[in-house]
């Protein structure tokens, strides 16, 4: 069973995504800020990370930067799930190795699931 690490601070989004992903047969580990997310990354070694950008303690960009510094974590694919989606932000995340950028208001859980499947297979 593929393991997905969700780093997101919005409770309702966590609940919805978790439900959708678990129903589709994934194991989901939830963390609620960037720092917790980094710890979980090392411990859990997930197959994929779903990462929010605006979060308390450590934002998504800083998480990406710290992840890239660690050889054992560098190659885990990341999909950004954010409420904003400025071209500059998206470009920056891609330069930092993110595979995809989903704007929450433009995607729904089903479409997120499809993107997840694409990365894991």
């Amino acid at each position, binding site marked *: 069973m593929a393991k997905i690490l969700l780093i997101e601070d919005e409770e*309702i989004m966590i609940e*919805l995504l978790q439900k959708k992903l678990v129903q589709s047969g994934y194991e989901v580990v939830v963390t609620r800020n960037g720092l917790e997310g980094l710890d979980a990354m090392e411990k859990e070694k997930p197959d994929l990370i779903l990462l929010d950008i605006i979060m308390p303690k450590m934002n998504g960009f800083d998480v990406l930067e710290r992840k890239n510094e660690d050889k054992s974590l560098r190659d885990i694919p990341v999909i950004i799930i954010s409420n*904003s989606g400025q071209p500059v932000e998206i470009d920056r995340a891609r330069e930092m190795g993110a595979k995809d950028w989903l704007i929450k*208001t433009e995607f*729904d859980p089903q479409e997120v699931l499809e993107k997840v499947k694409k990365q894991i297979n």
Partner: protein
Amino acid sequence: MLKKTAKEKQENTIGSLKKRIKKANVCLADQEKAKELENSQLALMNMLEDVEDARKKAEEEKEKTSAVVKSLSDGLIVLNNKERISLLNPQAERMLEIPQKELVGKNIEEIGSSARLASLARALKDWSKGMFRREVLIDKDLIIEVSTVSMVIGGAELGMMLILHDITREKTVERMKTEFVSLAAHQLRTPLSAIKWTLKMLLDGDVGDINDSQKELLEKSYQSNERMIGLINDLLDVTRIEEGRYLYQPVLSDLVSIIESVVENGKDDIKRKGLSLEFKKSNSRIPRIMMDAEKIKLVIQNLLENAVRYTPSGGKIVISVSADKGKIEFQIADNGIGIAKDQQPKIFTKFFRGSNVIKVETEGSGLGLFVSKNIIEAHGGQIWFESKEGEGSVFHFTLPVKKELEEFLKEF
């Protein structure tokens, strides 16, 4: 002999009489001359008085003018016809933080060496062409608007006047407003995505089966929420345009396929409203051009949405596209309610909605055409329309077919 003497006597008498008359005349003339002299003297005195008065008046006027110049709330810099500074009023001294005596006699290039004046000097480089309300950032606490007025008297060029108007407060308020809208819109997006995701999962049956009437209600809520998201996105686009952060990512794209995808997405709405839509493709090949496809798609969506929204059932919408003389022209015609003539000049203004339109359809932010105009113009194209109230509207836009477009967009 005697006779002769008598005659002589007579002549002598006449002669002496004449002399006396002459003398008397001379006397009279002298008197007149004296009188004249006196008059002239008086006139001269009067004139001198007048001149003195005029001088006083001129001085008063000068003082008045100088008082006006000094007490103007705007800064004023006067350049002579050799482009050298001849006057600075106290407001200009205060704004630029430099006393008049340090600037008088200097030209634009010379003043540019001072850090506080550098941006003004840069803006004034092409001052001979004149400028109107051009924004110049002096430092982070002072933004001024510079206008030039050339001083010409009787055809002679006397120089140029620069008016410096402090707009820091207006700009601050404007920025705060934009930031507020941007923040509010961002904050609204979070709960809106939560609503969208929740409704979608309910609709997809992810949390259990739902019956048809539940589904119908949920569908409606989902659509309302989508409209709200659209509105928030429009607001965010407007704030980005106003902050100069609306970025373009031009790639080589095909306008025809963009139109086709917009038409495909809109076909349900068109059917629901009982309208017909025809897409007339040009016989000539439409070249692929550099454009920000997402933003051009948004423009076509806006124009199609307007046509659908403001055309009554049974109406017809015709889209066509053609390529000609270095540009591509898009056109969308409807036989809808049209735009009243007196409102036509305001149509691209932000938040504007036609009075006839509000009666028909309360929905609509009045932002679509404002955003569209900005997008088309950023691509170096033009957008315009013809419309007659009660008969319909035709909107057009052009996009230039040129390599430089990429460079053009980069500047935005």
